[in-house]
């Protein structure tokens, strides 16, 4: 991997971190509409895949989707503004944190019902195949998700139809407040199930952005040949499940052990050991924070969405009328 790619990965992770920290501020400062789910600690997955995707590819992700949205090119202002229900928000407040979507960036949606987007990703992949566009689809979800029926149906159909799709399970050990291993029949909820769909199990260190990037690149090119993948990336969320979760369910020492495996310092060390100047990396971090701070300001200064946006775009004609 060349230095430029590596620096880009580093920058993306830093930006994602800064974005999520500001998103947490949105909550702490009581500016949040509804809920939000942070991916602090999981930035390597978003960054690694983000770098491997082509502009025309499609992303599908969950309510924990700020970083997946950001890496496709959506501005921090649009994301933070959406959390606050502002006019500058990506969806002008109609979706909120859980539904970030930017079709023009190939970010085909953040889905808030567990598992629902896997079948939808299958449909987008089928469309790409049918239209012969060479596009691939990446679909992210958590470790609690492989226990829901939609996961199973989507995986089977993707393989049967030989679709250009990569399913990525970000295993952060918990589904909300419940350790996934307590409610799952196998140890690795996604990887151990890959053979049930005729797929090879792929279990990776989701905190190592190089590994993520390379796995993503391989899987994406395999996808473009009509061979879907299921990847399980092991990671951890430093923050709570959502909003103010105090994480009482964590055994003592667990967070600390994972903080020691934080993907960003880990990568900083690697880059320094590869001869990159530490000061350059610090500059990237400072720039990331500054960008997030500026976005936060912009979003705060944006007015609340006007009520009339609530009444548009139920239908493709832009309206909401159900009768004449």
């Amino acid at each position, binding site marked *: 991997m060349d230095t430029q790619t590596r620096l880009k990965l580093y920058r993306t992770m830093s930006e994602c971190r800064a974005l999520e920290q500001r998103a947490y501020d949105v909550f702490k400062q009581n500016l949040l509409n509804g809920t939000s789910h942070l991916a602090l600690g999981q930035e390597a997955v978003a960054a690694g895949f983000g770098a491997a995707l082509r502009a025309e590819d*499609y992303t599908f992700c969950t309510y924990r989707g700020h970083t997946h949205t950001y890496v496709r090119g959506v501005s921090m202002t649009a994301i933070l503004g959406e959390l606050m229900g502002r006019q500058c928000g*990506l*969806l*002008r407040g*109609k*979706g909120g944190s859980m*539904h970030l*979507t*930017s*079709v*023009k960036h190939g970010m*085909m*949606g953040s*889905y808030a*019902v567990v598992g*629902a*987007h*896997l*079948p*939808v*990703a*299958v*449909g*987008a*992949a*089928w*469309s*790409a195949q*049918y*239209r012969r566009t060479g596009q691939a689809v990446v679909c992210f979800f958590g470790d609690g998700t492989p226990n829901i*029926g*939609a996961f199973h*149906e*989507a995986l*089977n*159909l993707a393989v*049967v*139809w030989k679709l250009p799709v990569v399913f990525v399970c970000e295993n952060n050990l918990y589904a909300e407040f419940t350790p996934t291993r307590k409610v799952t029949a196998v140890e690795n909820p996604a990887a151990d199930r890959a053979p049930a769909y005729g797929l090879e199990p792929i279990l990776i260190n989701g905190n190592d952005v190089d590994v993520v990037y390379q796995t993503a690149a391989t899987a994406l090119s395999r996808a473009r040949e009509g061979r879907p993948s299921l990847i399980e990336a092991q990671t951890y969320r430093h923050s709570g499940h959502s909003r103010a979760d105090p994480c009482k369910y964590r055994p003592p020492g667990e967070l600390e052990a994972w903080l020691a495996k934080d993907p960003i310092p880990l990568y900083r060390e690697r880059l320094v050991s590869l001869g990159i100047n530490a000061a350059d990396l610090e500059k990237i971090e400072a720039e990331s924070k500054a960008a997030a701070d500026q976005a936060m300001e912009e979003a705060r200064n944006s007015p609340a969405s006007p009520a009339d*946006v609530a009444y*548009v*775009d*139920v*239908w*493709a*004609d*832009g309206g*909401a*009328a*159900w*009768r*004449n």
Partner: protein
Amino acid sequence: MAELTYREAVGAAVAQEMRRDDAVVFFGEDVAAPGGIYKATTGLLDEFGPERVKDTPISEQAIVGAAMGAAMTGLRPVAEIMYADFFAVCWDLVANQVAKTRYMTDGQCAFPLVLRCASGAGLRLGAQHSQSPENWAMAIPGLKVVAPSTPADVMGLLAASIRDPDPVIFFEQKSLYETRGEVPDGEHVEPLGVASVVRSGTDVTIATLAAMVPRALLAAETLQDRYGVSAEIIDLRCLVPLDASALLESVSRTGRFVTVEENPRLCGWGAELASIVAEEAFRALRGPIVRVTTPHIPLPSAAALEDAVLPGPDRIVDNVKRLVNLE
């Protein structure tokens, strides 16, 4: 004019639209090679090939999801959910995802897709293969709802549904599949949201759809012949968009309003229509609004039992008589 069965009209409409637009694809369980369990789509695989006409596993969530993902990326999928009752196994995809995603994303994508299904009673298939859940779909903002009663309407409205930029739930009443009717030659498309006055009358407006239309027509004959009561029968054809003005106009003339619904009573579409009329045509009403529905029970399987509980011409006549005499 050609005479087609209701069943043939389904296949004809899908074929017409597939010929016209490469973005139209068709899939579902047993629909391609076998041509559908009611043989409504025989021949499509041969004509359009395996990339456009596909059999799926028994995975309704994957089917609806596939339709949604395809629709939001440029295709116009038509998917079959074999029985309307099975919307229950994929209801999240239908009611929470397909219906709401356009709105939630502030209009970033459209979902030009059709989910067609075999609906309704008459084949003695019992409580899980005979439901008429048009009201389930009508209750969800973001879904259009179509339920035709004739081969011509199947053809015209299914074609329109496929061309429509919004998601359409298309209910085919399975006891009508073998019924025959004239269908205009050439390309046939009818607009959604226009009710059809299938019989004019002056004493009472009866709103109904699908398999209840012929029953209401029979009732109207009896009402006329035996009791001199002139019933206007409105075949709604679409529930969303709803042709409310046709209803209100009719009631403004007749002063009486009756719905005939195949669904069990509670929260059926007739309740919605009743509430519209009770609000907007109240001054025109000469008597109570009456709903004739299947009672609020699951459907039994045996022929004698199914026949007993479904609304039939006699029950319609009795209710209209009661309404007219009540005054």
